[in-house]
């Protein structure tokens, strides 16, 4: 029961942001300065989130050494760039490195 309430609250708590975004977007012109500012905020938030998930993760990932996470991320980006923006190669290399480090190091 309480699990269902928690879920419904989490759904509502996430939807709130989505709905606010749509409500505000009505006043934004796609070729205006406001649009570029909001885009900058989006990129900054996404980067902050990715960086936080890597450097200071929650839960089980936090038990792995930070060097593993940062090292694997560096491998992923290096392979991505070397493979001319090969998304698939980058992800496989990064996650593979991470799993290998956790399993054998």
């Amino acid at each position, binding site marked *: 029961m309480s*699990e*269902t309430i*928690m*879920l419904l*609250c*989490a*759904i509502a*708590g*996430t939807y709130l*942001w*989505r*709905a606010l*975004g*749509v409500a505000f*977007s009505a*006043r*934004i*012109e*796609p*070729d*205006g*300065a*406001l*649009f570029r500012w*909001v885009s*900058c*905020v*989006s*990129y*900054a*938030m*996404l*980067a*902050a*989130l*990715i*960086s*936080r*998930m*890597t450097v*200071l*993760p*929650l*839960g*089980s*990932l936090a038990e792995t050494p930070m060097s593993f996470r940062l090292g694997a*991320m560096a491998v*992923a*980006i290096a392979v*991505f*760039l070397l493979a001319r*923006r090969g*998304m*698939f190669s*980058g*992800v496989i290399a990064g*996650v593979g490195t*991470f*799993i290998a480090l*956790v399993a054998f190091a």
Partner: protein
Amino acid sequence: MGQPNHPPGGRMTARAVVRLGLRRGVGLPSVIVMTSMMGFGSLAADGGISFLTALSASALVWGLPGQVAMAELWAAGANLLTVVLAASLANARFMPMAMSLFPLMRGGTRHRGAPYLLVQLLSVNTWAACQEIFPAIPLHLRVVYYTAFASTILVAGQIGTGLGFFAVAFLPKPVTLGLIFLNPCYFALLFAGTRVRPYVAALLLGAFFGPIIYALAPEWSLLLTGFVAGSAAFFFFDVRPTSVSNAESK
């Protein structure tokens, strides 16, 4: 065939756009979302969350960082308010993401309320995919692409959550951890190819200050970092268009 080499407003049909959205969605994005959601599914199973709740979370919260926060804190026995606040704030990015995507899809829906329904499908993958392809798609068909692409990966997310939930018993620990690591890793690569100067600045500033601000104010850090780093990137690196046609309002 079907490549987006038509000029905007050209003879692209709705059917062609649906096909394009489905095909783009079915490839790597679906595989990634499926495996990331396997990570969530296994986390949920581990934390004693029921199968139905896990599936519903993937379909209706539809924001992995919020779902992970929810599963982890719930398993740790945190109280309801803490769990919900953390889940909600971890997904606060949807506000600026909607604000920077929906103006690009104007005119595609007849009903005024439709965007409030469509926004439920929004995720990082769809946002990035749409930002990339929208210039090649006529204005009134963009919402069609958005819906086709987003629906595809939503289905992939459901499959992944289900697989992860039951596979957790058979997966070795390093693999489960790898599945959870896959999400930030993929997101990082999704943006590693960004070339627009103010956006590159926003990404770098956000990545640098994100964890620092998180250490000071964990709950509000994403909103705070997004606002501060995003504004700094905009004010210091945005190049104002000089042409008169781009006259800025507001």
